[in-house]
């Protein structure tokens, strides 16, 4: 057994510090409600993405499809959730994903706001939903008491109205996760929403909620989250805050000045006219959420959600025009209210436009005003069609990957030029950055969307250090410290990138199990340090002070490795192999603006190196049993050996 945090003596690893101790379980078919000890999982997996991965492995076998009642929807916080740790609001969601393609793999997602902390105040570290309610329901969890309630008056409501109505019904300031019509109608690109613009977007889990006839989960509680060493914990919080990298769109303390540096005049002009205030998630000083009001449209959050429509709207109506502001903001609010994944639309709309330009689709055939992309009417027609699964939405709500298959050869070819893999659309350029290509190749979903702070170092600042004030020698020193080599900053070669990818993966699983926001941690570099050197040990310092168990950074990264291997075991059982650790063919043959494609041989050699570092079989990409055992995953190794002997058998 690999030690996970060294117990200081009392042997109790699950609370009362950090964790609140119980995971709530609800079966919507039988209406059974029970709970289990968090301690069953927390020693080996801590929380968040780790416990979610373990429950998926234990309880969701390969044959289960995303919309089956047997699929589980797992909401997990971590020991830092609900404390004053900076940017500790997020709750991780694990489930089988309807958006992934072609295999509906198990994967993760997350959402910020105030829901995760409130779940802990209500008495639970996590919540696992299984089964399917006979009729639409929502779940309330008020100070430990969970109840399944009728959602008959809520079904069909947008996410904003549903949250307000639930707060009215319960007579309290509850925090609510809910789905919009897109989730109810089992769109594969439906979100789970909270507040006006916080979403678990990119894994299609809104549809999973819809398939369970579950409209919402409202939580409220007066319980406390204790920490073992309050003084040390506050010191660690203060330190973390002092070295945090400001959010590029943030309005919090310290000026948080990237916004002004971002070459995004259209967004800045919109904010200067319409932003009323900044909002933050629970316990986060970064304030990345701009609360905006636009007359004739409405009020709510704007961050990066609206990127899918911003340029289209201003190109259509004119820069700085009121109509452009209106169409852009309408699209943001409508997507969030209807519960449609904004990020999918970042690529879906240009894909529709390219198909129109090639004559593959026309207005009459698809039933959308394709000549008016950028208008408010187009946004409304597209979003409503997807959310309500009407007209073109019958195809498009399946997500672009499946829509491309339905629309045929030309559509698929154009699709591949905008998506990278697994039905997940492009995020950073896999041709320009070898590390990005590798991170994409091994994940189940877009790996960049829940690792922003890592991404900002390994992509943005390593390539263009100057706008961020990072000097080349400082950059190299940071890379030496984090990755053991400055090679990682050289984007012209795959040399050193396999090891760097492995390290990035361990960090991402480590902070997603605490749970801290990927925009803030792991703090590889810091704007406030003289040499810009960051300090990832802040994560284990917070964890140790919160739980009273001593964790070093190495302990945390080892847990990250365990989680990564467990996730891989689950993917393997679902059919993942070396040949599917791949990106669409397009990116190997169509160059980026600087003329680079993914060099096939180098890429495959880096994969060999990756499997070797990981202790996985390079032929198959399957973790070797001895590696799993070394990581304390002996039972997973046993199960895997049985599965490999007879892939058709039902897991134990």
């Amino acid at each position, binding site marked *: 057994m690999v030690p996970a945090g060294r117990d200081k003596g009392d042997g109790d690893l699950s609370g009362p510090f950090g964790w609140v101790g119980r995971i709530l379980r609800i079966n919507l078919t039988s209406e059974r409600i029970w709970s289990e000890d968090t301690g069953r999982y927390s020693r080996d997996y801590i929380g968040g993405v780790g416990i979610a991965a373990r429950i998926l492995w234990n309880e969701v076998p390969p044959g289960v499809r995303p919309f089956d009642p047997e699929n589980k929807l797992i909401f997990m916080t971590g020991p830092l959730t*609900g*404390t*004053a740790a900076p940017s500790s609001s997020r709750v991780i969601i694990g489930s089988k994903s309807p958006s992934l393609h072609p295999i509906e793999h198990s994967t993760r997602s997350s959402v910020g706001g*105030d829901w995760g902390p409130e779940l802990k*105040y209500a008495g639970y570290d996590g919540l696992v939903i299984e089964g399917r309610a006979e009729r639409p329901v929502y779940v309330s969890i008020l100070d430990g008491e969970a109840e399944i309630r009728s959602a008959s008056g809520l079904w069909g409501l947008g996410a*904003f109205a549903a*949250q*307000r109505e639930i707060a009215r019904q319960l007579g309290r*300031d509850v925090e609510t996760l809910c789905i919009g019509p897109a989730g109810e109608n089992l769109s594969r690109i439906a979100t789970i929403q909270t*507040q*006006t613009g916080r979403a678990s977007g990119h894994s299609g889990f809104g549809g999973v909620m819809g398939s369970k006839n579950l409209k919402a989960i409202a939580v409220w*509680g*007066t*319980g*406390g*989250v*204790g*920490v073992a060493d*309050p003084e040390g914990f*506050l010191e660690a919080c203060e330190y973390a*805050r002092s070295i945090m990298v400001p959010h590029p769109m943030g*309005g*919090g*303390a*310290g000026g948080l000045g990237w916004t002004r540096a971002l070459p995004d005049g259209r967004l800045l002009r919109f904010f200067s006219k319409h932003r*009323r*205030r*900044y*909002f*933050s*998630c*629970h*316990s*986060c*000083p970064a*304030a990345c959420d701009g*609360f905006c*009001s636009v007359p004739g449209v409405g*009020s*709510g*959050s704007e961050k990066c959600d609206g990127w899918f429509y911003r340029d289209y709207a201003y190109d259509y109506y004119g820069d700085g025009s009121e109509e452009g502001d209106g169409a852009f903001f309408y699209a943001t609010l409508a997507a969030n209210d209807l519960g449609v994944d904004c990020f999918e639309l970042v690529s879906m709309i240009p894909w529709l436009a390219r198909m129109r330009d090639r004559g593959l689709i026309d207005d009459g055939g698809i039933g959308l005003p394709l000549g008016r992309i950028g208008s408010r009417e187009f946004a409304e027609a597209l979003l409503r069609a997807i959310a309500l699964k009407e007209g073109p939405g019958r195809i498009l709500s399946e997500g672009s990957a499946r829509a491309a298959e339905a629309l045929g050869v030309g559509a698929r070819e154009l699709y591949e030029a905008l998506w990278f893999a697994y039905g997940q659309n492009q995020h950073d350029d896999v041709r320009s950055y070898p590390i990005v290509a590798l991170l994409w190749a091994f994940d189940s979903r877009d790996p960049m969307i829940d690792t922003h702070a890592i991404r900002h170092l390994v992509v943005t600042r390593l390539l263009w250090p100057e706008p961020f004030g990072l000097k080349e020698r400082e950059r190299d020193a940071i890379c030496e410290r984090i990755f053991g080599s400055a090679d990682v900053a050289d984007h012209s070669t795959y040399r050193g990138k396999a090891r760097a990818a492995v390290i990035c993966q361990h960090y991402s699983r480590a902070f997603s199990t605490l749970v801290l926001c990927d925009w803030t941690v792991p703090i590889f570099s810091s704007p406030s340090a003289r040499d810009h050197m960051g300090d990832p040990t802040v994560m284990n310092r917070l964890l140790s002070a919160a739980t009273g168990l001593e964790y070093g950074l190495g302990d945390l990264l080892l847990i990250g490795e365990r989680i990564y291997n467990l996730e891989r075991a689950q993917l393997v059982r679902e059919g993942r192999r070396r040949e599917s650790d791949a990106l669409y063919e397009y990116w190997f043959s169509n160059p980026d603006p600087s003329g680079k494609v993914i060099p096939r041989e180098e890429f495959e050699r880096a994969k060999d190196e990756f499997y070797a570092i990981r202790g996985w079989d390079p032929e198959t990409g399957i973790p070797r049993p001895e590696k799993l055992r070394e990581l304390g995953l002996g039972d997973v190794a046993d199960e895997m050996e049985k599965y490999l002997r007879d892939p058709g058998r039902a897991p134990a």
Partner: protein
Amino acid sequence: MSEVLISVDPGLCIGCRICELVCSLAHTGAFNPKRGLLAIHKDVFSGHVSITICRHCRPPPCYEACGVEGAMAMGPNGAVAINPSKCTGCGACADACPYGAILRDGAGGAFAKCDLCGGEALCAKWCPQGAIRAMGI
């Protein structure tokens, strides 16, 4: 010890609840914003935010309204504190407060108010925005 005044600017508040979190830790030993001795109300749909917190009035109307011997005491920094063992829960202090800042504890229902954390005013110290400020006078 100098007296302390609290000033607030809800327009700067980002609704992060760090003030309530550190307050709850200091006064209850655990984190929960509902258990703090100040209250941030944020309406994420309208964008409205209010900050309910004792301003430590001079003279304090709550203190003057309290008719129970020993239920309220004024510290050297000017902070009026409620003694829970003497407080009868009559609510006279809450009625007298012009800021609505005598709160009922989210869990127990007892009256409670800001005591300035012995002059340190953790809410102001931790507010990342300067939306709550403590000034020595």
